[in-house]
């Protein structure tokens, strides 16, 4: 976390938020005064060094804001008189998004589990189990010997037996209770009861026409501040309810040479720095699934063998109005 601030005819302030930084180094590529420096991303990712991924030379920074608009992950923000330049009409903006369509979402929650950034908040309301079932269950206290067979075997744990004497005066102070909100009328208790003390009838199938299946409701929400547009949510969604626009189009390849080859499990630097969980070590080699990769490029500089090659062919940074800024920002692309 750093701030660079200077007051002249206007107040300019550059804020760096390390929690949003992926260590990609795009900002260092576009900085015209080479004031930004990327730290040791692999040791930081492994928790061996506690420091920010990015540092700034505040003396040489001219507060131009190029890094702020170039960062697709909003880790850097330049404000002029309190207003972020990314909110100003004449400055470039990233047209990226990750959106969940409420009408299509079935609240399965798979996106929330898959998200490598824990950026998806998810909750749902399921109907009460008893509203989906019909049946009856009764236990004859006179016949029950509190053996506990039914309690132990009951699949949903609906039976509670108290069969330990709590008083020397009243040895048979026992009880058996069925929680009908849990009982599914499966009949296992009835079948296992040595005393024939349980009466259980399931009428769910017979009465199925009368049982209304309620709509499942919920909320699935992507926290923009944590999302890096990796597309895990969109890829894993079984009903295509998620739309992700990634910051870049292009490719990432591993080009091995005679001297430099991927060391896979020995190294796994690329896997450690990947914010998208897009890298796996398969058969001793790092494999990147581009479906989940946002082409940030953090793995490129992390690879000690320098065999990862990133080619960004286009980006969703729009509204670049100045020719000189266009020249600087196009350094992010490779064509």
């Amino acid at each position: 976390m750093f701030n660079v601030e200077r007051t002249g005819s206007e107040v300019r302030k550059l804020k760096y938020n390390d929690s949003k930084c992926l260590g990609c180094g795009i900002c260092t590529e576009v900085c015209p005064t080479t004031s930004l420096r990327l730290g040791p991303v692999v040791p930081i990712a492994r928790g061996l060094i506690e420091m920010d991924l990015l540092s700034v030379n505040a003396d040489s920074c001219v507060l131009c804001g190029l890094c702020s608009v170039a960062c697709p992950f909003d880790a850097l923000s330049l404000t002029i008189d309190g207003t972020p330049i990314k909110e100003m009409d004449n400055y470039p903006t990233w047209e990226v998004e990750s959106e969940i369509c409420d009408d299509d979402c079935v609240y399965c929650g798979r996106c929330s589990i898959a998200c490598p950034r824990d950026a998806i908040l998810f909750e749902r309301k399921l109907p009460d189990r008893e509203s989906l079932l019909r049946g009856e269950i009764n236990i004859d206290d006179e016949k029950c010997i509190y053996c506990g067979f039914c309690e132990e075997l009951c699949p949903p744990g609906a039976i509670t037996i108290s069969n330990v004497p709590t008083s020397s005066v009243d040895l048979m102070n026992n009880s058996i209770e069925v929680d009908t909100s849990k009982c599914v009328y499966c009949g296992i208790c009835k079948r296992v009861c040595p005393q024939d003390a349980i009466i259980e009838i399931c009428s769910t199938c017979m009465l199925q026409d009368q049982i209304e299946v309620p709509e499942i409701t919920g909320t699935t929400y992507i926290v923009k501040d944590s999302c890096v547009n990796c597309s895990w949510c969109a890829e894993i969604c079984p009903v295509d309810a998620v739309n992700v626009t990634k910051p870049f189009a292009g490719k990432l390849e591993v080009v091995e040479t005679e001297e430099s080859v991927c060391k896979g499990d020995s190294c796994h630097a690329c896997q450690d720095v990947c914010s998208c969980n897009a890298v796996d070590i398969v058969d001793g080699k790092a494999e990147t699934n581009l479906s989940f990769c946002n082409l940030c490029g953090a793995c490129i500089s992390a690879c000690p063998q320098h065999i990862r090659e990133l080619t960004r062919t286009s980006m969703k940074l729009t509204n670049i109005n100045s020719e000189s800024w266009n020249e600087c920002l196009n350094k992010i692309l490779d064509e």
Partner: protein
Amino acid sequence: MAVKIDSDVCGHIENCPVQGLCIKLCEQGAIIEEDGDVKIVPENCDDCDLCIQNCPNQAISKA
């Protein structure tokens, strides 16, 4: 091929900014601590070069 450490530049754990980062980074056991100093075990080295790339003193190079 393994790696070698330039003894003049190396922080020898005690003066290393991360107290032996290379030892912590190497999961192959090719760089170990012995008598308070850094020691290379060449037979364990997989030539991944992680240590070379990340040494804060740039003291490690190819043997």
